[in-house]
């Protein structure tokens, strides 16, 4: 599935992934392939991308925002994203 991470300053990431862990307002959750259409609010926390294009997992510390899931296309809107080590 295709993942995009957008902030007002720039496009942080665009690429393929097999799973995305997100900090939802009601607790952390993960989106896998063929997830039903979803719009969810996110709080400050870690966004973890599993099985990214180069096979590894990537992590960002993101600020509150939203995620939209539709037809295996995931768009994360956040006010800021810093790559974690």
């Amino acid at each position, binding site marked *: 599935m295709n993942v995009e991470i957008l902030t*007002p300053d*720039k496009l942080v990431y665009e690429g393929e992934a097999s799973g995305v862990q997100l900090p939802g307002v*009601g607790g952390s959750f993960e989106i896998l392939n063929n997830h*039903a259409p979803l*719009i969810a*609010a996110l709080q400050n926390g870690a966004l973890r991308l599993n099985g990214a294009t180069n096979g590894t997992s990537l992590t960002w510390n993101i600020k509150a925002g*939203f995620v*939209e899931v*539709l037809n295996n296309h995931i768009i994360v809107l956040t006010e800021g994203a810093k790559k974690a080590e």
Partner: protein
Amino acid sequence: MSGQLKEIKTRIKSVESTQQITKAMKLVSASKLRRAQDRIIKMRPYALKLNEILANIAEAAEGDVSIEYAVQRPAEKILVVILTSDRGLCGGFNNNAGKLVTQMLEEKYSKQYAAGNVSVMYIGKKGYEIFKKNKEINHVRDYVNAFGDLSFDNVSAIAEHVMNAFVKKEYDRVEVVYHRFKNQIIQIPAVEQFLPIQKLEAEGVDQKDENKVKADFEFEPNKEELIAELAPKILKTQFYRYLLENNASEHGARMTAMDNATENAEELIKDLKIKFNRARQAAITTQIVEIVSGAAALQGD
């Protein structure tokens, strides 16, 4: 005679060096403008997507959702945010914004102005310089230097401050005066009501996009809370857009002003050169006449 020649020569030189400065400033503005435009373009996908999500939720939500930023109160305390540049030499750019504010004080908000209930917030140093002698308004100068750091974090802090003040009823209405960026040559000074939100509407979303509209979304936590979360985000993005557009407009205006200045200098130099050549010619003619008449006097003997 040669005194006049020298005078013209120095003037040509000074105009030429001024022209070099204006030319350089134009080039600098052009490159800054490109960067400013880049910023606007980079922000666009985020703003568009935010609006799209709003459209998706609004469609699914029934009835109106109450948002604290949309509360209409009688307009007693007014905040006007004026966006200007930090530096001059950009033509009528700052004065145009200043004129719009003055007009608002005299017409739309004359009652509140008379009662001393109008505050003006300055973003950009030149705005304060226009109004600093006015003792009737409350000057808010906390964010004068915002154009020094145009990151979203920095700008959204200002938006948050304004939004909180509105919720705390420190202001009943917030208006923003800025320059809308149309293209490099045209920038339109404009007034927009920032708070309360007049209507929360998704702009620029193509509703004909089939699979988007028909998708049956799950909402987490729920539509009402999502809209409540979405509203401040959209407001902040809007505020960010004001600053970015004003920033691009500033560089556009300076570029045009400096371009005109360079052209004027060119014309001035042309005129001066003609003057210089005439004076030179006149000097030569007088000298020849002196020599010839001197020789004629000798021959006459």
